[in-house]
């Protein structure tokens, strides 16, 4: 546990030292703020005291930002050889993967925390559905965790950050839209299967305020699977 936290701390420091964290925060907040308040079908156009717009904007911004965040995590260590230094210390492959995962998740949670003023503002305009807000935030955290674990897996199979970024996006796009589209094309069992695999389905029901154990299990199983795959990729030591 302690080892995981030490790795997390180092990663977070690296984020904040290299401006990565600030750029990420700035871009995330300006995108989500812009679309929530000023452009497109913003809150004033919809005319409802609801954060639905914010949640659907954040859904897409995080989809693109997270791979950019996770791409260097293991790929860079593979490339520079520091992975060898780290894994020959009393650190297991699993602790390394979990440490990286936690640091990225914390950074996303920090970014999300900065959007709390939106909640307060909207709540002061009208009657805000608190369940939907809670569910929406939980959905965003779980969705981020899914993309972070996929991103870390993508980063663990290569020593090239660009390859890691593109691989993460490629895997992510299936969960983000392709499964959803396939669910519409197929009927019967395959249709249901794709419907279940689609992340959109689970995220949307959550951001409506319905927290179903089925959805939570769905998110958690993808996270665990991707992290386990990252750990296995690391264990191969593909130099």
């Amino acid at each position, binding site marked *: 546990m*302690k*080892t995981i936290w*030490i*790795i997390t701390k*180092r990663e977070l*420091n*690296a984020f904040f*030292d*290299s401006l990565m964290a600030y750029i990420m925060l700035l871009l995330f907040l300006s995108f989500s703020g812009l679309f929530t308040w000023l452009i497109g079908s913003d809150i004033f156009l919809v005319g409802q005291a609801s954060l639905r717009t914010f949640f659907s904007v954040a859904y897409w911004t995080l989809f693109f930002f997270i791979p950019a965040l996770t791409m260097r995590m293991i790929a860079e260590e593979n490339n*520079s*050889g*520091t992975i*060898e*230094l*780290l*894994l*020959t*210390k*009393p*650190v*297991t492959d699993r602790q390394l993967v979990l440490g990286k995962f936690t640091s990225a998740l914390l950074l996303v949670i920090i970014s999300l925390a900065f959007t709390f003023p939106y909640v307060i503002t909207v709540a002061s305009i009208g009657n805000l559905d608190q369940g939907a807000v809670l569910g929406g935030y939980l959905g965003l955290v779980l969705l981020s965790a899914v993309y972070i674990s996929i991103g870390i897996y993508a980063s663990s199979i290569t020593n090239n950050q660009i390859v890691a970024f593109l691989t993460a996006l490629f895997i992510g796009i299936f969960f983000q839209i392709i499964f959803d589209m396939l669910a519409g094309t197929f009927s019967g069992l395959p249709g249901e299967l794709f419907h279940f695999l689609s992340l959109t389905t689970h995220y949307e029901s959550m951001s409506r305020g319905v927290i179903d154990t089925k959805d939570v299990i769905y998110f958690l199983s993808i996270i665990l699977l991707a992290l386990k795959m990252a750990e296995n990729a690391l264990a191969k*030591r593909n130099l």
Partner: protein
Amino acid sequence: MDIKVENITKSYGPQKAVDRISFHVKTGEILGFLGPNGAGKTTTMKMLTNYLLPEEGNIYIGGRSLLEEADELKKHIGYLPENNPLYQDMPVIDYLQFCAEIQEIPREKIQDRIREMVRVCGLNQEKHKKIGELSKGYRQRVGLAQAMIHDPEILILDEPTTGLDPNQIIEIRKLIRELGREKTVILSTHIMQEVEATCDRILIINKGQIVADGTAESLSKQVQGQELLHVKIEDGDPNEIYKALQQLPAVALVDFMDRQQNRFEVQSKPEMSSRREIFRLCMEKGWVMTEMIPVETKLEDIFRELTMN
């Protein structure tokens, strides 16, 4: 803690990088790994530090299997990998702090250990700089500092003196010698003087196999079968001396090195020494011997002999 390696094998694809290597390093011994590029030195070290797992065989550290108790045993190992990879954008002091924490050094001792490492490795001037801004020599010192920060009982150093200037090399060798009194040190290098200056024992590896194992002296004896002398004998006719030397019972072969200066190369018969006979011969004939140099086989020659095919 001693290290016992039993028949470890590791291959990359069809090529065997390490082929059934076994050896034993005692506590307080400094073992030098020698071998041409691609001989399997680095792969062996990676297995000793549990970065790579051997396909066959086992490694015992202090009598415990590294494959079974890796997490516990890794705490006793300090490792400086080849090419010394480091986090370029971390300041030296933060990096040492990170290493100290991850090695589970008690919180109250961390600052002392960092100060000690900064002093021992001469990093005081550079401790607040980012590692990426340091020169190669300083980076190497940071690499050594991180390897030693938790005061490990075993040190595994892959080419520890590359990139250092001559003064630093001498300092680091001295440091390794000092450490080697209580700790078990394995170092790899391709610098022969380094092995001779620092190591108690030498292991020469070629094509994944151990080709020689012993002290510098025992290795030279092993290779050199016959005694070789360079002699200079004055006050006599070169040809006459040549003939007289040739007739000595222990002498196998005489050669002129320099006819004008009466210098000869004398090779003795196997397991015999001709030094006394040559001396007596000079006494008898009234010649003056001004030089007699036993030619030792250097480590370089041993290395070349064992690793060239």
